[in-house]
């Protein structure tokens, strides 16, 4: 379908500005439950049109890409905008459309993979769970390959197109031993199927599951807490991504309001947004308004350097967008991080553990997404952890809630930054060690 034509049609119908966004996704996936429980191949195309009539805007998204479907969407958007009250702060759409070279983000074999192509990887995953522990069973998992293409055009330019592929696998392993159950889950994510580490993932899930058969509980109290790199990856975006969004700052919903130039974290912490980094999952050549991306230092040695902007929030402050617009096909763009990167420190994982006297090594949490980025209150429920005593991993434990102020934890509470960075989609961070963290438990 022709996005430029849709933009032109909107202007003909009375829009002063229009932008069109076309998303195509192709996905092949296997659901795993001991065996391949189910498999599917799906193709989906979605189209969104956002228009402005003066300072009144509207968005319509449709998955009916026939000529009539698109015409109806454009007409509907114009008619909504005509009756919508104006946004006094609206100053127009992005006028700087372009792309950044971020290297190859597309793998043909991954984009065209059939369920049959995924099968050997699933087999390797199952076998490696057994390799990790002979008694371990792979009980639930996924294996997915996905290709996405996005095309953007507006009244000022375009179209620009970007495409990327991604592969993901996940496995839950379980060991039953004398009436007790141990479980553990592990995952791997990459640009292409061939870069997935199925063997390593399965071995880790299987062997850990056996260790957690004997998991005890953590006594209520304050501890030195080490978050394994993958736990750091899950905590950071929940708290930081909304807090550094210029929209939340401007609308008074971020605890970082008025804190540019101030030390908000320990000097050991540097956080970047890899908008245009080569080979980083989440980096892209242009954002969801067609604005070229860039790398940004959000926090430099503990000091808050910048928020992230889309065109709307940038216009409100009379500055340029940072290229951080993010959207679905039928929602308005909002500023958001592309890939949050916490710069690694010097300490190896082993050194961090050896420096821990009375601590808890957190391997896996759930519910961290229920933390409160507005108040800065972090909470996460531990499903798998180890007690660390006098520099050594002592025994497995489960259940307990980590609770505390995120910024206090990352300022005075931060003790060590590891060098064992793990890359996930949209985030990469190493293991971290904190002092005096409250864990609520039995």
């Amino acid at each position: 379908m022709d996005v430029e034509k849709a933009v032109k049609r909107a202007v003909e119908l009375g829009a002063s500005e229009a932008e069109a966004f076309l998303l195509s996704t192709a996905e092949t996936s296997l659901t795993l439950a001991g065996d391949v429980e189910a498999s599917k191949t799906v193709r989906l195309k979605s189209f969104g049109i956002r228009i402005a009539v003066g300072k009144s805007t509207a968005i319509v998204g449709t998955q009916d890409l026939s000529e009539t479907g698109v015409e109806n969407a454009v007409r509907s958007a114009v008619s909504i905008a005509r009756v919508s009250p104006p946004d006094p702060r609206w100053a127009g759409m992005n006028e700087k459309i372009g792309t950044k070279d971020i290297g190859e983000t597309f793998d043909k074999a991954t984009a065209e993979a059939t369920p049959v192509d995924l099968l050997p990887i699933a087999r390797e995953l199952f076998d490696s769970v057994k390799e990790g522990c002979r008694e371990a069973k792979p009980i639930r998992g996924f294996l997915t390959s996905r290709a996405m293409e996005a095309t953007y055009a507006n009244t000022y330019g375009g179209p620009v197109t970007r495409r990327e592929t991604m592969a993901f696998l996940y496995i839950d392993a379980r060991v039953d031993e004398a009436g007790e159950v141990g479980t553990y889950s592990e995952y791997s994510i990459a640009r292409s199927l061939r870069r997935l580490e199925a063997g390593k993932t399965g071995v880790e899930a299987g062997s850990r599951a056996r260790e957690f058969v004997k998991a005890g509980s953590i006594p209520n109290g304050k501890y030195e807490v080490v978050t394994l790199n993958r736990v750091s990856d899950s905590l950071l975006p929940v708290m930081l991504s909304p807090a550094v969004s210029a929209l939340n700052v401007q609308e008074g919903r971020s605890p970082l309001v008025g804190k540019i130039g101030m030390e908000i974290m320990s000097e050991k912490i540097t956080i970047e947004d890899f908008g245009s980094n080569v080979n980083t999952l989440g980096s892209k050549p242009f954002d969801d308004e067609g604005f070229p991306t860039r790398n940004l230092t959000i926090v430099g040695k503990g000091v808050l350097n910048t928020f992230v902007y889309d065109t709307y929030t940038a216009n409100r402050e009379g500055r340029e967008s940072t290229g951080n617009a993010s959207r679905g096909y039928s929602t308005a763009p909002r500023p958001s991080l592309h890939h949050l990167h916490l710069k690694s420190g010097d300490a190896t994982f082993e050194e961090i553990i050896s420096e821990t006297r009375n601590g808890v090594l957190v391997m896996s949490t759930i519910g961290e997404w229920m933390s409160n980025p507005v108040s800065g209150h972090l909470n996460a429920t531990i499903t798998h952890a180890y007690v660390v005593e006098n520099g050594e991993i002592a025994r497995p434990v489960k259940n307990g809630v980590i609770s505390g102020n995120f910024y206090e934890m990352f300022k005075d509470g931060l003790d060590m930054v590891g060098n064992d960075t793990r890359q996930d989609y949209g985030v990469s961070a190493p293991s971290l060690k904190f002092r005096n963290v409250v864990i609520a438990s039995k």
Partner: protein
Amino acid sequence: MLKELAAYGLNIAEKLGTTYVEARAQRTNYELITIDNGVLKEFSKTFSAGLGIRVFYNGRFGFSSTNDLNRESVKEAVEKAISAARVSRKVEKLGERKACKGVFKSACRKKPEDVSDEEKVSLTLEANKAGLSLEGIKSAVTRLGVQRDWRYVVTSDGVDLEYESSLLGLGHMSVAFEAGAMERVGDQESAVAGWEFIEGKNWAEFSLGVSKLANEAVRAPLPPPGRLKAVADPEMVGLILHEAFGHACEGDLVSSGDSILSGRLGSEIASPSVTIVDDGLAEGGYFVPFDDEGNIKRRVVVVENGVLKSFMTGRETAGMLNLPVSGNSRAQDFTHFPIVRQTNFFMTPRDHGFEEIIREVGEGIYILGRGATGGQVDTASGTFTFSAGPSWMIREGGLAELVRGVVISGSILETLNGVEAVGRDLRITTSAFGGCGKDNQLARVGDGGPHVMIRELIVGGG
């Protein structure tokens, strides 16, 4: 046209040697109005339509979908579904069900699409202004969500079912600021109904109430961390049940061993005052007259007086577990195959009055769902967690001070065994804004129950 394409897909699949085919057509419209601090920030309408095809080929299931609504694409989808079936596991036995035909419509007196866009914007704007009118409120976002969903399932074994449902609601979030501290409280009310639901309520009062609570919460302390005796309100009971127990009763997790309830049918797993039901047509809940395999949704008593009676199933899991097909095989939309999901999952009421429960607790916490952000469970280990809204400490048998930032954690079976009293009230709610996530699929659900006293929960605090 969608129905015709579904029939075409069925026909093609049968010719290609499948032994069973299920074609699902869907058309969904969703409108979202977002008012941010007095300004219309987003008015969006989303139209989605497409076809999902699931085939049973050589004893295996495969799935594909398309939203290119022409015969050629449907044929391609059938071929892809067959190719997907080649790698799936062999299914030994499918649960029995009867062929049936029918058309269902949820109650809707005034169609939301007949209400003008201006009226919808102005109502949302007024609610937002009321929320902002209170001193101390720095930020307020109000959303109006309106969904219309049409689903059609036609299968090669004689099912021909369709439903149309209307779901709508209004949500409001306020951020209060006091002496350098900030706190947010969000709440929403939704119903399977027509515009009459929106007209029947004072939404300015509703958002003002949220703001008042945010103003109180920002001054409130965190609860003391550790073990506490708890009273949960109907919304919290719904959340706890859904997360802590409902998922572990889903037949797919049970049959794969990913549930701590595997192999425990017939055993006592909760205190005798606990009876839990899953009902697709419960008042206040979401509307699920049949599932996405075309099974009529049955009311399932999952737990009766503390004894585990049944699990929720689709055809495949019913076959594996030797249980009846309960009609719980649901798909987010036409691009997903159905998986076992809850519909409206709730505890049935008993005889305790609210004051009586608080008095009996003596010392503990009264956890409230208003302002809660959700929950999550690790079904294999049985650990669950959820966040409550601003809640009350209970001291000397009465409500004492408000606390904020309440996060609860527990273990499934300990919690249900620890139910010491069940109230006589019952409230079930649903949402037009969110749902339950499982296997990367989102499903609208309902949940609830009466007020319930729980012996012990772990409360995260400061």
